[in-house]
């Protein structure tokens, strides 16, 4: 009784008849307590970041970054875009399982995962704009002021754009429910399968495409991280990177937004995480096997006894083999805590791997080697925090974790 009244309290969907403008205005107002630890940390950083972004557009990218002529891509590409997109991989894996394989078990996390993926893409596309020297020309590859079809980046740009649209369509029924738009809901729901199929195809292509971007940098990336299999490695690792993010994010939202989650979904949560840990174990095993093949095939033994070689071993053993084993043990013993630890280690491993390819191993021999400035880090944090703010805003207003309004069932 108590829970259900709380649910109605937190989710104010638009009743038919309420004027749209008035409704939207009320939805914009902040809710809940202001002085939370997250707000106290994130607000000053976001303001500092906005200030730095102003300086960046006024005085050039070099005014706040440590980028050099040898290292033209730094933290904003290597972390914000390349790593962030790997973490957004959960959306295509979960939609594949729910809409294509029809595994109903994972249905309750589809919306939050798709929302996560969509916001990740929007914000990483936004972060990309900060890194473009001439962002006003960003529409050129879309409008045809030069179709550079021989460029992997051309494909990645188009796939990014189309995938954001596909994910928006996948998520749009939740927006329609929020706005009380019944007819739109019906039309948009009918488009879900097409969007899912299109979205999965685009995802596989640009997850691997982000790796393929670095194929031409053959002589600039440390041999332990360069191979013609980078696209395949990026694709396979995006499966467990995305699912680890789903486990991590799911565990947090479960605590933070526990009042929004129905009892049945609370109970399903454990089973979902348990199931995902099995998929992660398998995907990580496949990934490790591929890495091993690349290593042996490339005859990289001589590099092992160098400082970069030790770092490679830390990545492969510490952040692939060990989390894989923890996932496996967590799955076998059905221990949620172990699975969550494995998810965090795996995510750290993905960060390390993507940064090794894009930043740490990229022109590792250049002196001085690129190290991001504190300002680049603040801007990166600004992007992440702003994304979390929007995520929280949507979760608090739209039926993402909560059940859909009753008219959805009626109209079926």
């Amino acid at each position: 009784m108590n829970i259900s009244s709380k649910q109605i309290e937190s989710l104010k969907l638009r009743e038919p008849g309420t004027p749209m403008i008035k409704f939207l205005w009320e939805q914009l107002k902040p809710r809940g307590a202001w002085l939370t630890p997250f707000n106290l940390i994130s607000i000053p950083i976001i303001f500092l970041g906005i200030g730095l972004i102003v300086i960046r557009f006024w005085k050039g990218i070099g005014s706040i970054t440590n980028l050099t002529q040898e290292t033209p891509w730094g933290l904003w590409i290597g972390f914000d875009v390349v790593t962030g997109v790997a973490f957004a991989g959960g959306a295509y894996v979960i939609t594949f399982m729910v809409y294509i394989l029809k595994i109903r078990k994972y249905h309750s996390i589809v919306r939050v995962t798709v929302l996560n993926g969509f916001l990740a893409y929007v914000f990483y596309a936004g972060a990309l704009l900060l890194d473009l020297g001439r962002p006003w020309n960003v529409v050129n590859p879309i409008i045809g002021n030069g179709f550079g079809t021989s460029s992997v980046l051309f494909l990645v740009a188009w796939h990014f754009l189309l995938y954001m649209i596909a994910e928006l369509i996948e998520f749009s029924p939740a927006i329609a429910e929020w706005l009380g738009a019944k007819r739109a809901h019906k039309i948009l729901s009918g488009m879900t399968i097409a969007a899912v199929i299109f979205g999965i195809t685009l995802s596989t292509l640009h997850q691997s495409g982000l790796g393929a971007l670095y194929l031409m940098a053959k002589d600039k990336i440390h041999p332990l991280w360069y191979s013609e299999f980078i696209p395949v490695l990026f694709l396979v690792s995006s499966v467990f990177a995305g699912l680890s993010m789903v486990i991590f994010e799911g565990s947090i939202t479960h605590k933070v937004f526990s009042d929004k989650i129905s009892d049945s979904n609370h109970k399903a949560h454990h089973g979902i995480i348990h199931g995902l840990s099995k998929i992660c174990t398998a995907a990580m095993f496949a990934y490790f096997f591929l890495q091993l093949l690349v290593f042996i095939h490339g005859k990289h033994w001589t590099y092992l006894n160098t400082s970069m070689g030790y770092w490679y071993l830390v990545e492969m053993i510490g952040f692939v083999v060990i989390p894989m084993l923890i996932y496996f043990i967590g799955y076998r013993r059905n221990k949620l805590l172990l699975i969550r630890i494995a998810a965090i280690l795996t995510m750290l491993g993905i960060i390390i791997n993507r940064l090794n390819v894009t930043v740490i191993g990229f022109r590792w021999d250049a002196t001085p080697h690129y190290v991001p400035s504190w300002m680049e880090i603040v801007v990166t944090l600004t992007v992440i925090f702003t994304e979390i703010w929007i995520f929280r805003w949507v979760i608090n207003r739209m039926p993402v974790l909560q059940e859909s309004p009753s008219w959805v069932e009626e109209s079926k």
Partner: protein
Amino acid sequence: MSLDRRDFFKTMGIAGLTLAIGNESSAKPVGNQETEFFGMLFDATLCIGCGSCLKACSKSNQLPAPEGEIEPGVIQKTSESRRAVINNYNTSKGEVYIRNQCMHCNEPACAAACLTKAMHKTKEGPVVWDADRCMGCRYCMVSCPFDVPKFEYHSANPRIQKCDMCYSRIEKGKIPACAEACGDALIFGTRRELIAEARKRITENPDDYVDQIYGEHVAGGTGVIYLSPVPFKELGVKQGLQNASYPSLSKGFLYSVPSVFIILPTLLLGIHEATKTNEQNHEH
């Protein structure tokens, strides 16, 4: 050295292409015919490090005049304000000067990387950059094996700076400013002619040259080629690059994209249809 009309005709004939009317000064292909493209030959045995090519370059491109002397062991790099540099290396045969600028690759990685074709190889040979198209993504810099394109990091309206072989001069039938100023160690011509000339010099003076033309094969062949009295690794020239072109590295991925776009959706739709009955059974 400019385009030799007879050689031009001969090449066209070998290629089995019909030729429309051409004229002496025109370097452009006639009609839709392709011509062989221009390049430059730098001969390190002849360069005395006078720097007149560098002065001509900065003047012609409205860039600040070169600063700093050309001294042995002081290695200068091209930058957003310098499209070419000359360095002096202490080698096994004494001091040798060598120039560094854009190599104008036959199949440039920067052009293949560019998603707006802002960076592109012209039919005449120079690899040029177009400000109206460029997004400033700097993927050309990531891809170039010679680290040639430079970015104006401290500008709100940044450009990519690199040698364009004085493309605007070539279009008017003139030769690049540096080659005009030098006329000795740095010569301009069609790539085929330059390779022939380089080979002739090596054959005629085997003691003065190492038997290698840098740029003949490296990175799939470059428009700018080098001759040297000493092995190129003594001159700080990029070593260990592959002979295949760099765009060939991402071709496999690019070619697989259309197939994935056909096969994967079909497969997904198939599985979707196949699992439909499962769902119905589940619900009833």
